[in-house]
């Protein structure tokens, strides 16, 4: 490209600028090619698998949402209601989800040991407890790493995190790190505030410097840098970035998901998955309810969750995407069965619930059981690793997959967790 700048004397400015434009076109994908692929979008949809993690930061009280204990002293204020799944009852404050439970499975026998926010968050995302010697990759990075190849023309990063930073890529490397956006789909620093023509002129200059350094044969890092530059410039002009423009959705759709950050985030997740992104995490915080839990859940948290989550499930189902899209719902832990003096519940990891659905999961079921007061898992207990193994299986990812950490040690995917067999028919 630097060849361009041996501009002969007398070359007209117009001629010159047209060269620049040509150079810029080389840096962006052939539009025609992209369009063909878009035309085949419906076909593509069937071929790619994705997962959406609804992350409930703070540790939601699953006894008040998915595993109620009416009448028990620990049971709290909420009643349970029956759902579209036979014999499955959930909280009365989740009426919309109650109509979607035939698509979902509740695992009521989660039993973990990390009841500190930071550690629990790490453990539930990675299947490993924090270790200062190895940084493990989280769900998003692992799944993006395994599924990125299935959509060949994907220009959007394969792991998008909406409204929160998630957990990083660890030893898998920065390519698989979360691409963080806010719930309106805004990408930080995407716009430099200069016009396209000038940006292209700058990029031509940049190319001259990059190429000089690369041709001097100084090693791989210089080439890798240019590759990331190209990915970024592609992204900046990519038509795929439309997937982030969640406000383009029809009014009814925006209302269906809920006019709030989490609703927008879930809708954005659907748009991204539709475009081929293998993993999207959407964060909803505010579950650390040490005081006054029932009012907070009833008036604030559950209505938002219920609306957005049910909209997502039914929307994916309506679009025929649910068989290829796994939905996961979880926090870092749950909350104490005992209600404290302030009308709240504290941290509890020993017995709690997560919810999964879509993909290859068996649906409309409950797995496992807790004691009458909710304090013990009375069936086989499951861990973060087991849940992760199950999610990977439901996406068709081999549990024999082994990564090599930076220290050269082999790391089995999902920390050798065992598949929760009840989740599969």
């Amino acid at each position, binding site marked *: 490209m*630097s060849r*361009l*700048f*041996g*501009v002969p004397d007398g070359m007209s*400015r117009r001629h*010159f*600028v047209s060269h*620049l434009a040509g150079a810029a076109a080389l840096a962006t994908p052939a539009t025609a090619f992209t369009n063909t692929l878009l035309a085949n979008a419906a076909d593509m949809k069937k071929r790619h698998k994705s997962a959406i993690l609804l992350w409930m930061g703070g540790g939601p009280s699953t006894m008040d949402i998915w595993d109620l204990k009416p009448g028990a002293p620990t049971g709290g204020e909420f009643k349970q209601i029956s759902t579209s799944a036979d014999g499955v009852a959930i909280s009365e404050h989740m009426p919309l989800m109650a109509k979607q439970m035939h698509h979902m499975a509740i695992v009521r026998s989660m039993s973990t040991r990390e*009841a500190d926010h*930071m*550690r629990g968050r790490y453990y539930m995302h990675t299947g490993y*407890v*924090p*270790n*200062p*010697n*190895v940084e493990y990759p989280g769900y998003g990075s692992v799944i993006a790493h395994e599924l990125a190849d299935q959509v060949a023309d994907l220009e959007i*990063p394969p792991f998008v995190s909406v409204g929160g930073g998630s957990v990083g890529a660890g030893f898998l*490397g*920065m390519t698989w*790190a979360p*691409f963080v956006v806010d719930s309106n789909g805004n*990408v*930080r*620093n*995407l*716009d*430099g*505030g200069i016009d396209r023509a*000038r940006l292209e*002129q*700058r*990029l*031509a*200059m*940049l190319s*001259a*410097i*990059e190429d*000089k*350094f690369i041709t*001097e*044969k*100084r*090693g*791989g*890092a*210089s080439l*890798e*840098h*240019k590759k*990331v*530059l190209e*990915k*970024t410039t592609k992204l*900046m002009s990519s038509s795929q970035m439309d997937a982030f423009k969640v406000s383009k959705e029809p009014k009814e759709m925006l209302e269906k998901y809920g006019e709030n950050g989490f609703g927008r985030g879930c809708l954005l997740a659907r748009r991204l998955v539709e475009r081929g992104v293998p993993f999207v995490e959407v964060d909803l915080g505010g579950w650390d309810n040490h005081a006054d839990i029932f009012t907070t859940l009833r008036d604030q948290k559950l209505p938002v969750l219920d609306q957005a989550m049910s909209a997502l499930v039914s929307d994916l189902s309506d679009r025929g995407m649910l068989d290829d899209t796994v939905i996961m719902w979880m926090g870092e832990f749950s909350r104490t069965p005992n209600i404290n003096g302030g009308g709240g519940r504290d941290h509890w990891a020993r017995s709690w619930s997560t919810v999964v659905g879509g993909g290859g999961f068996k649906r409309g079921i409950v797995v496992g059981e807790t004691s009458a007061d909710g304090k013990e898992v009375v069936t086989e207990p499951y861990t973060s690793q087991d849940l992760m193994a199950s999610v990977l299986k439901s996406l068709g990812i081999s549990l024999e997959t082994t990564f090599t950490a*930076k*220290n*050269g040690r082999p790391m089995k995917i999902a920390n050798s967790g065992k598949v929760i067999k009840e989740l599969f028919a």
Partner: protein
Amino acid sequence: MCRSNCMRRFAAVSLRVTVILVAGAATLPARAADEHFGIEPVRFINEQITAGWSDAGLQPAAAATDGEWCRRVYLDLVGRIPSVAELDRYVHDSTPTKRAELVERLLGEEYEDEFARNWTDVWTTVLIGRDTQNEQVSRPGMRQWLRRALAKNIPYDQFMEELVTATGVNTNRKGLPGFNGAANFLSGKMVEMGVENGVQATAKTAQIFLGVQVQCTQCHNHPFNKGKQNQFWELNAFFRQTRSLNREEGSGAVQFVELVDQDFEGEGKNPEEAELYYELRNGLMKVAYPVFIDGTEISKTGYLPGKMEDGTPYGANRRQELAKLIKTSPNFPKAIVNRIWGHFLGYGFTKPVDDLGDHNPPSHPELLDGLAERFREQSFDLKELMRWIVLSKPYSLSSKMSAKNASDDPSVGEKPKFSHFYLRQMQAEQLYESLLTATEADKAAGEEGARKKDTWMSQFVIAFGTDEGDEATTFNGSIPQVLMMFNGELIKQATSTGKGGFLDKVAGQSIPNAAKVETLYKAALARKPSKNETAAANALLVARKGDVAGALQDIWWAVLNSNEFIINH
């Protein structure tokens, strides 16, 4: 310029040489000055490395240019690229010993603050990682201690001892007595899964100060090396008198941590022989007492030192005993030599740098051993070790490979031969400080700039921060990093044409445009533009229709975003 100053500095160098000559008892050939500046360990490095090239049939790369060498030595020693003035001073200096003189200055008083800042960044990441969420660690406390220790260049054995035996309050806050920032090394490594067992303290101490990876042997005998499970727990026993106490003020939240030593009664409740138990894979429990990695046992007592009524002393401080054993261990100087070598040359003699042992033989065993010996003889002086390495031949080579040395490629698993300089990405802090040096962005933003420095820095660390285990020799860039360098707040400020800023000053000089472009190149890349680049720059001047400041802005943006800027080469 400054002839007399230079002479004086040169005299200082010569003086040092004499001292080393006596200490090292080596006779150096008379023509030595060019090759190793009369410093025996430099000669030793050069001999060893050169022998490795002949054995492997490699021819080293050409010497780096003055600009390249100056840039890398600033980056590696003080954590930023040189300013145009600093670069010019070095490049235009024609003294044959100018490299030694620059190193002398960078290690001396003039750069003491910057040296300490840079190495505080490096050591903070090594000692406590980049995790900012561990409530039992105070990063400011850690940094405060490091900055003082590094500015004073305290001997490395003392450095290790203060960290390994630290007690005290980890936060420096008004009204809190007993502050000791060194306590932060261990304060966050004592408790795991709610159990105060010092497992992480054991693993990190062994890894950092002894270069051995024992963490796997916590649960089982090591599959590849001689590590046995009992060794882990015997080393762990040294940390069983240590408690990391959460001190609270008001409601619930941890306010600060105090690291203390307490009598350890032992899991069998016999403080005279205070043992711990660990579980074998087959479920059997075994007992462990403090035994160092070389098999040296210390007293089994769990009591801290004291005196009986009749004056008989009893007890032992296990961490203090551990520090003594580490000091005399041959692994101790080897581990730090390997780490520091890796810092300057991109790869250590082993990969990773903190995994020494028969299972992972070093690329240059004699060199590693010899440098370790010399480092011990030199009273564990870190600056001295750094001086040897940056004045050595391998550090002086170009990063441009040739057919005669391209096969020397550690990134594909080959053992490094150091026949050319290996590229590596700048660390977040280096990149940030370099941007400020090159662009004076903080000054251009005036008072607001000073205030914003912290925000910019944290944005950078979030976007560019890699954890200590990461290889800097591969570019691990991500799209958000590039977007930040393309369009971020700091870059906007750095490329602003606002009055009084760097670009404004360059644009306003009454020199030809070509010279202005050259200034930008020197400021960021420590070189002049090539023909092609000059043409590209001219194209931008044309495109901006004579708006010189605007064109310089475009060029500056491109230069700052280039691989050549972001990579230490």
